[in-house]
């Protein structure tokens, strides 16, 4: 997911000073691209309008203008708010997003930390953002915020299970939890003895991919699962009292996690940085890998936002029923089937 890699990987891998800016860029650049391409433009075209057109060519500088606006705004704290918790909440959410980026491989060597249990680590840190949301909801001293926070927590707990269980299918098939291992398993795999395009797990784990994407949609609280910020019921839920830079942090967190989860889906189901035709050990992947991964990531992110723009919001009980009575049994069946086939075939 490191979208810019004009540097020598062996050098930046050892240098914290290079890693941190690249990490920031890897979080902010995809998030900004998603906001401009999808949130500003794609939704506008779907609604037969042009979207922002004034700032820069085709409105491409609109986001910078928005960021400038947010940075200038007053950082308002409600009188009765719990000041410290209120101030810290957006950082907890953003921290979980940043920790997710470190395990995403963008090339054979282009990875921040090649953890042995990479995908497991991703699932664990993504669950930490719930705490930030609960902190925001509670500390705002506002009934709507609290309701939004509780809704968010209930939703994230419910959809974490199908998310993790969907990943288990991929892990069984790849035989490893290491992100690079999962990419290589797909690059070196064969479809019924034909190794022309490797074996992207989307062909065998399409049920898992479906569950994963639904769960990601809910984890990101994007419509149709946006009850925690349902504007017609809760103002904007746990975000109600936030303004200025702290709102901006939540906003970045939302779209950066969309980018990160899309990248994880690209690694798990579409072969990550690998493209057919080039040997996966070739060093060229350190240069083109990030671009390939970014391309796959943007395609998957489009799915997320396409659903966001076209589906009406569910009801809270429908949301819980979908997770507990449909997705979790389905993902358990998927795991059983994958395990059986792994042993038999």
């Amino acid at each position: 997911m490191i979208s810019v890699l004009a540097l020598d990987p062996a050098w930046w891998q050892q240098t914290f000073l290079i890693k941190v800016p690249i990490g920031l860029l890897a979080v902010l650049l995809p998030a900004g691209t998603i906001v401009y391409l999808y949130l500003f433009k794609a939704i506008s075209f779907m609604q037969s309008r042009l979207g922002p057109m004034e700032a820069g060519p085709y409105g491409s500088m609109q986001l910078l203008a928005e960021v400038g606006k947010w940075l200038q705004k007053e950082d308002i704290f409600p009188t009765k708010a719990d000041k410290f918790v209120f101030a810290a909440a957006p950082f907890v959410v953003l921290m979980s997003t940043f920790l997710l980026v470190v395990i995403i491989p963008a090339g054979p060597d282009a990875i921040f930390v090649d953890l042995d249990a990479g995908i497991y680590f991703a699932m664990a840190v993504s669950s930490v953002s719930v705490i930030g949301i609960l902190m925001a909801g509670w500390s705002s001293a506002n009934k709507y915020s609290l309701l939004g926070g509780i809704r968010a927590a209930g939703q994230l707990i419910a959809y974490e299970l199908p998310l993790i269980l969907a990943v288990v299918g991929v892990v069984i098939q790849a035989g490893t939890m290491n992100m690079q291992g999962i990419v290589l398993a797909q690059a070196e795999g064969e479809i019924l003895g034909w190794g022309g395009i490797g074996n992207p797990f989307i062909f065998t784990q399409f049920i898992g991919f479906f569950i994963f994407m639904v769960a990601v949609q809910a984890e990101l609280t994007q419509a149709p699962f946006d009850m925690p910020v349902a504007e017609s019921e809760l103002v904007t839920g746990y975000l109600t009292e936030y303004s200025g830079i702290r709102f901006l942090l939540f906003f970045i967190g939302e779209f950066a996690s969309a980018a990160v989860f899309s990248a994880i889906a690209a690694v798990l189901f579409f072969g990550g940085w690998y493209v057919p035709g080039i040997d996966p050990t070739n060093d060229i992947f350190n240069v083109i890998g990030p671009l390939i991964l970014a391309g796959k990531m943007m395609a998957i992110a489009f799915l997320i936002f396409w659903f966001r723009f076209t589906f009406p919001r569910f009801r809270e009980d429908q949301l819980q029923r979908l997770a507990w009575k449909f997705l979790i049994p389905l993902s358990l069946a998927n795991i059983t089937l994958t395990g059986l086939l792994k042993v038999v075939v």
Partner: protein
Amino acid sequence: MVAQNVFFGIIAFVMICSAFKVVTTKNVIHAALWLVVVLAGVAGQFLLLGAEFVGVTQILVYIGAVVVLLLFGVMLTKASLGEEADLNMPNRVLPAVIAALMFGVMTYALIDTFRDTELPRESVTNAAMVSDSIFADYIVPFEAVSVLLLAALIGAVVVARKE
């Protein structure tokens, strides 16, 4: 090893301070949030020891699930902001005695078991080694725990469901 020892000390100090804050703070939510710091410290210690799988499990289970459920429960029932007066337990002697006893027993057990034995540095486990030992050496306890959890799960469903 020196850098690891220094970080062990720093994390341990933060953990002890946070643990004190958990029991002395005047607000239930604050106590839960301080608990997050303590548990994150435990995860950090595991990571320092190279036990990556256990450390990540610590984050997933304790921070991602247990504390979130705790916060969720407290916020659903009573989540007042600011200080609360009635959080202190009136009878403090008995819990203090129990805590001291627990500490004594655990310290004694640890010291008595290991004494001067130096654990091999390579005993540290990655995911594959953990799963190998669970599904080979410890398969019976593992299955027993699974059945126990299943029983608890069914029990929860029975208690919660409407007649």
